[in-house]
């Protein structure tokens, strides 16, 4: 009798042997012998006392102390143990063939090594090393499927699915953590709610995009735009001292996308995004000397980016463009002019200070 569950300990097989005695007969043989200690003897319906009225010590014969009367009825009852074959114990045994479960399989820390067809698999830390062919199946525990999950109309994996080689699922919902070690093939749309996507290098930050790398992997990267861009200008001429490097004031802005240009106090551009900035500078000298300069200062000092003209003429326009790295926090740029004219003037028209993020760091 196959079974699953508690072992039927204590159950026995009862055998009755009835013998009609001959005159003075003392030895009787019960059918199938007996187990010593598991033998009851009745003489004409009266139970005899073991060790006094009879002895039963060899497992084969029962010997009466006093010979029987002819025609007396001797009944011998023996008890044997039950032997169960083709059974599966609750631990250590294996189902040798296919098992079809048509309702709910509630399994905690279960290993299924064959192909399994089920409706509902409520599993806690379940390992399926074969194929889980599930139609309208809910996996609520930890499903570690090393081969294939073939989902039918509605396969729901609510726990953490790890090590899935192939998830061939129709209308499948994965609400837990799906660790797909190979290829995830999505035949239709991927709809993401408040989902965190972790790629190589970790989770992206605000404004980043997924980008393919040289080795066909995918990682989060920061795109160049939208980044800071500004354009500042003047509305009045600015006179400055001869032979004195003087900061050009820019009290007005065409645009300043990130509020990174200070047009009220310091007239400087302090970008808040680290990267490489294209800077365009134009200075229009209405009164120039023989030596006229337009120079960019970084963090309050000259760093070698300027343009000059050595000509004693008025109405000179100096302009230059360059690409500069800015750290996105403390670095700032200012525009300075210089002329050895007696009374140099940089004009409101034709004097501009512009820049934008060309590439993020």
């Amino acid at each position, binding site marked *: 009798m196959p079974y699953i569950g508690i072992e039927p300990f204590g159950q026995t097989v009862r055998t009755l042997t009835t013998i009609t005695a001959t005159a003075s007969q003392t030895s009787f043989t019960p059918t199938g012998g007996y187990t010593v200690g598991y033998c009851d003897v009745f003489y004409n319906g009266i139970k005899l006392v073991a060790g006094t009225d009879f002895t039963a010590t060899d497992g084969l014969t029962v010997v009466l102390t006093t010979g029987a009367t002819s025609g007396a009825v001797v009944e011998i009852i023996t008890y044997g143990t039950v032997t169960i074959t083709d059974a599966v114990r609750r631990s250590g045994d294996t189902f040798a063939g296919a098992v079809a479960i048509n309702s709910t399989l509630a399994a905690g820390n279960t290993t299924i090594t064959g192909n399994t067809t089920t409706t509902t698999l409520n599993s806690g830390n379940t390992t399926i090393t074969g194929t889980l062919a599930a139609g309208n199946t809910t996996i609520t525990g930890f499903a570690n499927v090393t081969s294939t999950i073939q989902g039918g109309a509605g396969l729901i994996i609510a726990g953490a699915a790890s090590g899935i080689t192939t998830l061939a699922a129709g209308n499948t919902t994965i609400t837990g953590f799906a660790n797909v070690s190979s290829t995830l093939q999505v035949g239709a749309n991927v709809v993401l709610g408040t989902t965190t996507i972790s790629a190589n290098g970790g989770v992206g930050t605000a404004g980043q995009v997924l980008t393919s790398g040289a080795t066909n992997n995918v990682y989060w990267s920061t795109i160049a735009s939208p980044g800071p861009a500004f354009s500042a200008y003047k509305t009045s001429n600015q006179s400055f*001292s001869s*032979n004195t*490097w003087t900061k050009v*004031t820019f009290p007005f802005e065409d645009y300043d996308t990130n509020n990174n240009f200070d047009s009220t106090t310091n007239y400087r551009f302090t970008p808040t995004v680290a990267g490489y900035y294209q800077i365009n500078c134009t200075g229009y000298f209405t009164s120039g000397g023989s030596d006229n300069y337009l120079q960019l200062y970084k963090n309050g000092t000259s760093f070698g980016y300027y343009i000059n003209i050595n000509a004693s003429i008025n109405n000179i326009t100096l302009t230059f463009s360059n690409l500069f790295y800015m750290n996105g926090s403390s670095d700032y740029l200012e525009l300075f002019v210089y002329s050895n004219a007696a009374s140099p003037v940089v004009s409101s028209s034709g004097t501009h200070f512009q820049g934008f993020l060309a590439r993020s760091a």
Partner: protein
Amino acid sequence: MILYEKIKALYPELQDIDFVFGTILLQNDSDGKGDYIAKWEHPTLPRPTDEQLG
């Protein structure tokens, strides 16, 4: 008289080249504080005192 003119009056031998990218840097940060000596590294002429420039 601007700062440059005061310095030239003190040291007439100075040339314009000394003020462009030379040993003397006069600067104005357009912050209302006026011109000032940002650098003075002339090899022979001492930095003018405030009294001299006053």
